[in-house]
């Protein structure tokens, strides 16, 4: 049953298919914003299939880490997808501290990109790596502060299941002022975690080509692309289950998910790319301040 959960239903296969379709929604909405038609719905599946059939070129430097890194990221994302999927099906199936496990696992994709890109030995990739590290340092602080606000709101629980059931009983965290502020902070951090514009400095296509992914080709690139689109499925779902889970039947989940997805895609299409120092100032300055205000409001019971 565990293997079925991990490999098929809430885990790998399901989240891969949903993620690839979410990636298509991203491309389609982007195209419509730019007054284009955009690709057909199966485009990302075709891209994935094509990359599997291409030659995989390995660099001279550190082959083991280079091959290993994409799988580390992918497996972490699958684990988060499995945990969240099981949880949303049955909130009682939860263990103490699974929120913290999920938080750690959600950092792993960034770390896998950092590892793989450093192993490639490409100078442009190393530029991308340094930017990615700075970005991780920048967005993790407000992200965790926002989640602390949620923990306080739901009565000092670090069990995701209890956070969910607290929301089902007392209404969504989003409904309170502190929850709303923390939600806005978390959306901005999610934008950076997903590596979307305005926070895509690490793979800025125009200045450092593909940045961190520059040396990846074929099968390994396909794994990285799959990891990115699965993160596009997992991250909004995680935010929904933390902030907006008063009602977790399947239709409201899909509606909320698509709404969040379209919001981040619209932000992506209307904002210019910021430099990495601007991103750090942004996250450590006003955004962390907002998250702190949310914690203070939550502590005072609002």
């Amino acid at each position, binding site marked *: 049953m565990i293997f079925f959960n991990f490999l098929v239903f809430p885990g790998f296969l399901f989240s891969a298919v949903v993620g690839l379709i979410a990636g298509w929604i991203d*491309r389609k909405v982007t*195209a419509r914003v*730019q*007054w*284009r*038609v*955009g*690709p*057909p719905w199966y*485009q990302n599946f*075709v*891209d994935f*299939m*094509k990359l*599997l*059939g*291409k*030659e*995989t*070129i390995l660099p001279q430097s550190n082959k083991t880490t280079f091959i290993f890194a994409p799988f580390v990221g992918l497996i972490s994302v699958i684990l988060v997808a499995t945990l969240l999927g099981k949880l949303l099906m049955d909130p009682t199936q939860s263990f103490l501290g699974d929120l913290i496990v999920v938080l750690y696992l959600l950092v792993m994709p960034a770390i896998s990109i950092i590892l793989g890109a450093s192993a490639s030995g490409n100078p442009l990739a190393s530029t991308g790596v340094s930017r990615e590290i700075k970005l991780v340092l920048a967005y993790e602080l407000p992200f965790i502060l926002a989640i602390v606000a949620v923990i306080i709101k739901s009565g000092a629980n670090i069990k995701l299941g209890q956070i969910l059931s607290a929301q089902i009983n007392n209404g969504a965290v989003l409904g309170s002022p502190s929850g709303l502020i923390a939600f806005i902070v978390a959306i901005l951090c999610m934008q950076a975690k997903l590596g979307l514009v305005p926070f895509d400095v690490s793979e800025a*296509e*125009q200045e450092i*080509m*593909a940045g961190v*992914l*520059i*040396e*990846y*080709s*074929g099968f390994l*690139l396909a794994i990285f692309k799959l990891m990115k689109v699965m993160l596009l499925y997992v991250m909004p779902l995680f935010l929904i289950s933390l902030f907006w889970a008063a009602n977790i039947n399947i239709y409201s989940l899909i509606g909320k998910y698509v709404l969040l997805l379209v919001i981040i895609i619209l932000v992506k299409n209307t904002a210019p790319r910021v430099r990495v120092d601007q991103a750090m100032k942004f996250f450590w300055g006003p955004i962390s301040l907002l998250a702190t205000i949310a914690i203070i409001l939550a502590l005072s019971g609002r």
Partner: protein
Amino acid sequence: MKNLKLNALTKSLWVFHLNVGASCNNCDIEILDLLTPRYDVERFGIMLVGSIRHADVLLISGALSRKAAPRAKKLYEQMPKPGVVVAFGSCSLGRGIFKDSYNSLCSVDEFIPVDLYIPGCPPKPEAMILGIVKLIKKVRGIK
């Protein structure tokens, strides 16, 4: 299985654009026309990518210069196979107005193997789309 891979390849061509030295840059501007709302080749899965490692198509414009020639060869070798090379515009096809230049070596196809030629100075976007159609037919083996 091989057929599936080929079909997938022709439905998602990722293009790496390379300008090999001497040119007036008009071809490079014309390529961007294909991505605008009027032509929108992303409908067919065609994207510009930043790294040659991700590319299926090496799109070469401009007349080959002495400085750029070894780099063009290197990029051709770095492209993961299966991949195709497209020579684009009069300059890369036959050196164009740079025929008598001291800096111009030879046309692109004398230096690296070229699968598709798109003539014009610059080629119209319609001509480019026709070229892509011919390329896809060639890759799939349709006469």
